[in-house]
């Protein structure tokens, strides 16, 4: 493989991995607080369509990205009200949120099909982006890619090194205990869910403003589900989510290259299944395998909290 193809493949892999990483980091924080939000796909689509529409109407990519984040948070707020305040079932509500997001985004976006916008600008770091291979790969990306890397570090630091992060984890491990000590369980979960919505919205913005700068109905095409799988695959750890996102993204891109080169003769369909197969393998390991206990599924994940009065 020549250097140009290598660089080009790496660039493509970053494009495929970034939306997965952004959405997975948000969901990871929400799940660490004990809330399972299966509505990632719906929040991503809401972000994608809102970001696209805002960019189209204002001509500003920055406005688009902010609007996408707000749209994702609005969807997450809806989920929060239903599951945290009204105590509806998280799994059913999350699924409904996805279906709702698909329909709502199609409705909002119907007037925006068939028109392109200018992609988000690449922020090339002067000097560094001229370096061979690593230059264009590491220093020639757009804002959202840098943000996805920075957020990985930030979330990892927040969860393990800060007091609020540990409180959030405590809420996810045992909401009764956290409540007894006096932590506002519901408020913390609201914030975590909103962060999840924000990140899913940004992932959507990346799809409709950078990856493929256009709006097409259902354009996330299952990436929200892969992000959900990724959180499990990463065993709720941010750095593993980064590795997983690049692994999942890499598999997609490598199989596209492999198809024409004839080096690896695995049917394309099998390669498309790999992220899900890997996730199932991790799930099995969590539930029954020898690593049981070393994987840290939050103990209160998906359990509604009803404070004793």
């Amino acid at each position, binding site marked *: 493989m020549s250097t*140009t*193809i290598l660089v*080009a*493949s790496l*660039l*493509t892999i970053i*494009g*495929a991995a970034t*939306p997965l990483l952004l959405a997975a980091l948000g969901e990871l924080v929400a799940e660490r607080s004990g809330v399972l939000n299966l509505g990632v796909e719906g929040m991503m689509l809401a972000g994608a369509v809102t970001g696209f529409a805002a960019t189209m109407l204002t001509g500003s990519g920055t406005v688009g990205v902010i609007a996408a984040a707000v749209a994702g948070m609005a969807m997450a707020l809806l989920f929060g009200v239903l599951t945290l305040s009204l105590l509806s079932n998280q799994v059913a509500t999350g699924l409904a949120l996805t279906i709702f997001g698909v329909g709502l985004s*199609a409705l909002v*976006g*119907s007037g925006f*099909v*068939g*028109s*392109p916008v200018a*992609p988000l600008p690449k922020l090339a770091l002067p000097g560094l982006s001229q370096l061979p291979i690593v230059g264009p790969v590491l220093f020639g990306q757009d804002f959202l890619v840098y943000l996805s890397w920075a957020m990985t570090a930030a979330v990892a630091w927040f969860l393990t090194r800060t007091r609020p992060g540990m409180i959030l984890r405590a809420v996810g491990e045992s909401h009764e205990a956290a409540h007894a000590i006096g932590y506002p369980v519901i408020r913390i979960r609201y914030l975590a869910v909103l962060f999840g919505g924000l990140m899913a919205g940004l992932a959507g913005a990346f*799809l409709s403003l950078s*990856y*493929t*700068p*256009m709006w*097409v*109905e*259902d*354009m996330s*095409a*299952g*990436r929200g589900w892969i992000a959900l799988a990724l959180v499990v695959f990463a065993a709720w750890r941010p750095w593993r989510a980064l590795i997983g996102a690049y692994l999942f993204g890499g598999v*997609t*891109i490598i199989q*596209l*290259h492999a*198809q*024409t*080169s*004839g080096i690896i*003769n695995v*049917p*394309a*369909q099998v390669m*498309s299944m790999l992220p899900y197969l890997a996730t199932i393998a991790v799930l099995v390991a969590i539930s029954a395998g020898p690593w049981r206990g070393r994987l840290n599924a939050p103990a209160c994940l998906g359990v509604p909290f009803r404070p004793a009065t």
Partner: protein
Amino acid sequence: MRQVRLPRRLLLGAGLGLAAAPLARRVSAADPLKVGFVYVGPITDNGWTYRHDVGRRDLEAALGDRVQTSYVENVPEGPDCERVLRQLAQSGHGLIFTTSFGFMEATLRVARQFPNVKFEHATGYKRAPNVATYNARFYEGRAVCGTLAGHLSKSGLVGYIGSFPIPEVVMGVNAFTLAMQKIRPDARIKLVWVNSWNDPGKEADAAKALFDQGCDIMCQHTDSAAPMQQAEQRGLMAFGQAADQSAFGPNAQLTAIIDNWGPHYIERAKAVLDGTWASQDTWNGLAHGEVEMAPYGPRVTPEAAAAADAVKQGIIDGTLHPFTGPIVDQKGVEQIAAGAVATDEQMAQMNWWVPGVEGQLG
């Protein structure tokens, strides 16, 4: 001229209630023919379903008060389709178009229960006394594209993004390759499957991968304009799919194959109105207007345009067939004998590849 949009949920809910209603309806001469359309996707898809809906609007424009059309979009292929069809048949529709391959069995089942309603199923192969089938000869458009590619490709290497290995797609790839090789015998096609009709991200990734491997023209049999956008970004070339995609690639688009269902819809509605409708298989192409080519883009040289026009005219005149023998497949088996042209049946079942196509060929 009136157009009623029926919400699918309402239709499904109302289905049972209306089933008991008396089916006899007073039909007077002034009553327009109600024509129903069942779509698999949204009419905003800018591709397959959008073009069917343009055909429906053409029908309204052409026949005015004599027809009244309605459509149901986003109908999944399965039991839902049967309910939608039954509801359309019960609400007085005399002619119903079902526009996806997966509606085939449902169409036949419902048609048996409503012998007086005429059904037309797109891209299928099963017919009944009141079920006709229709399709368009898109491979003719592929041959025009292949001719342009033969003249305009510098590397002789064309990327092709495929959805699923079905005869319709295989036929298109082969027709394109054969036409291109007539100009450039060394032409090669790199084919990549994305296993989806509509996943812009994956289509864009496939286009990137193919461009990275040295392709300078992109061809696709998927729905989104993402590959066109990639071609535009890289200053390379691409062909639009199903609809004119020049908005996404003002410099990149060489031409596009445009589905044009209007002529067929008008003809068949007229046939019902005249009482001459009969079950048949319609497979029209460039000559009849079902397949149209978008205006050539800025990169098309006069020489390439002339060659492409000649191919198009030859197909319209019937003097040129994209599958004229001798054609030998990659295994060395002769598929079309010298001097012969492929029959419709041979094309509808095409599962072999011509030499020069590279990729995972099942």
